[in-house]
């Protein structure tokens, strides 16, 4: 599904990712943990194709396709989804309208037919319900005036409607209370079908308790420095990232 080989990414001329390797197979859920500033969001942005996140070395393949050749919207249409750590407000643009336009743009790019508004509304309403969100959020402007938790859950609604092949979730759990966290986890688990893959960036063991990751990686200073099963996340929870320094020493 996703094959990252010796990836180096520079932002404003500064190297942030310094040779990162990661392989995610179909249906797998990988967790990425790591201290603040280690480059987790940078990885998400680089995969989604944000301007200014220049790949200076290495390669990224998504379903055998070189990602660096695609525009962000082409990556989205190809099935890549990034849930933003800080979802962006778009004043005046109706949330449901935005999502439907996005879905139809992706479908059009794939040569599929547009969804009619009935089918669309049905899908959105279902995921809104799963996440116990207020349906009124559909009528509001995209993320405008949403609480932190509402923004994060809105990202999950978008994911559920867009049905990507690979979803990268950047600290979607940060700032959520335990109930909201469970709902987000349910939203994610509901989309696990043995084929769809996930890269879940998180600081906390809490979310992983509900998700059961196949692999856990530790990102530090632009590299994956440790990989393991879900027991690794427990160790991180107990010991913090301090042991990284020991192993580096």
């Amino acid at each position, binding site marked *: 599904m996703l094959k990252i080989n010796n990836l180096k990414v520079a932002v404003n001329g500064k190297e942030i990712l310094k040779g990162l390797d990661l392989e995610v197979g179909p249906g797998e859920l990988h967790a990425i943990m790591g201290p603040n500033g280690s480059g987790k969001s940078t990885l998400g942005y680089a995969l989604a194709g944000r301007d200014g996140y220049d790949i200076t070395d290495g390669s990224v393949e998504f379903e055998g396709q070189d990602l660096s050749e695609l525009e962000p919207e082409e990556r*989205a249409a190809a099935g890549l989804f990034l849930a933003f750590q800080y979802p*962006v407000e778009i004043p*005046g643009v109706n949330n449901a309208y935005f999502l439907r*336009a996005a879905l139809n743009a992706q479908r059009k790019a794939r040569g599929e037919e547009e969804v009619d508004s009935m089918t669309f509304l049905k899908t959105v309403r279902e995921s809104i319900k799963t996440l116990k969100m207020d349906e009124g959020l559909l009528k509001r402007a995209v993320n405008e005036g949403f609480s932190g938790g509402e923004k994060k859950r809105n990202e999950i609604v978008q994911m559920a409607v867009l049905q990507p092949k690979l979803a990268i979730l950047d600290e979607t759990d940060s700032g959520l209370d335990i109930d909201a966290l469970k709902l987000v986890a349910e939203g994610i688990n509901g989309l696990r079908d043995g084929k769809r893959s996930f890269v879940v960036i998180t600081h906390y063991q809490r979310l992983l308790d509900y998700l059961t990751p196949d692999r856990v990686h530790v990102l530090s200073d632009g590299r994956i420095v440790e990989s393991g099963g879900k027991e690794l996340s427990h160790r991180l929870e107990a010991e913090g990232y301090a042991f990284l320094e020991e192993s580096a020493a």
Partner: protein
Amino acid sequence: MNQTVEQVNQVIQQRYKAGFYTDIESDRVRAGLDEEIVAMISAKKNEPAWLLEWRLKAFHHWQTMREPNWAHLKVPAIDFQKIHYYAAPKQKNRPKSLDEVDPKLLETFDKLGVPLHERARLAGVAVDAVFDSVSVGTTFQKELKEAGVIFCSFSEAVQEHPELVREYLGSVVPFTDNYFAALNSAVFSDGSFVYIPAGTRCPMELSTYFRINARDTGQFERTLIIAEPGSEVSYLEGCTAPMRDENQLHAAVVELVARKKAKIKYSTVQNWYPGDENGKGGIYNFVTKRGDCREDDARISWTQVETGSAITWKYPSCILRGDRSAGEFYSVALTHNHQQADTGTKMIHLGKDTTSKIISKGISAGKSNNSYRGLVRIAKRAANARNYTQCDSLLIGKTCGAHTFPYIESANPTAKVEHEATTSRIGEDQLFYCRARGLDEEDAVAMIVDGFCKEVFKELPMEFAVEAKALLEISLEGAVG
């Protein structure tokens, strides 16, 4: 031959879809402006002596005036003697009904999406079509007549309802008002006239479509809307012109009179040719629009979507004379490439408990300059007057400019004036967010801009809101990347 050039241009610049030229024989006066020209225009229209006299007074006053230079605009010198002040498509006799109108003219308006003929008329909208200096036809005349509404060309009103024209002409915008209003008063050729009798709610939207076609001509139309006590009307104007390398002048005057409890809603979708991407050609749009809430509880609302013209100089205003009268101004002004706009409003509070609301959205892209200029004046006797102004600018790219010039003059301490202003750039983060969800860059910009303009678009009649949105999208093509 000209037409071929125009057609080639059209292919090159698909963006301006109204840029074609209609090859039709035109009856045009010689270039230049003097008493004789003024008299010729008046004679062509078979006008009564008092109107000619009024025109001549305006002309003499104009000669004593100078072009305004206070706007944040670079206006190249205009040679007023090179302009033809009257051009009309040649017609043997004035057509008595639309069936007699030259098919070429009907076709032109068809192409512009304003079908005049019976089969394809816009549902629920009566249209007056003005081609260069004259009105070529008005739809739904009969239906309106039954409601007692008068909706006709200005020339026709002068013939059929001279007493109304004489009473109200210049009563809101006197010819002494400003340079371009004086010019217009001297040479205006046609426009629309609306009269809504007392207690009548106009049964359909009224709309005028202005089209400049002939070369080297100016369009100087006049619109007069009179709403008698307790009446209500919604009026919309649209405008386009062919693409040409030379600049053309458009200097219109619009006067609205709202009597007791009357409501006038005036919407404009202005899409005059803006010039090419190097700033060549385009319409100079110098327009005076003013509404007079002449009696108590009157309401006047201006909504404008300005995407065209090389230069726009325009301040649709409200005089809030009656107690509790209300004025509104909703504006979207978009400039791209080398376009310049200095636009805004004036809210003059004279009556007690008068209210006004100003929502202005300026969007600048390319190398354009976009200014909001607004005056809120509270007279001494306007106790408890209220104004709310919100003025937002959106910048696309780094080579454009946005400016805000608010003027507040309050002579009554009970008045409350609120002003909010923001300037923002289309955020890279917003664009990336949209693209990461699958929208391409152009659609993303269109969506963000549409959201920015939402408060104004919702004031437009439904079908025109759709048109306005599409127009913004077209006008912004190539604005990013």
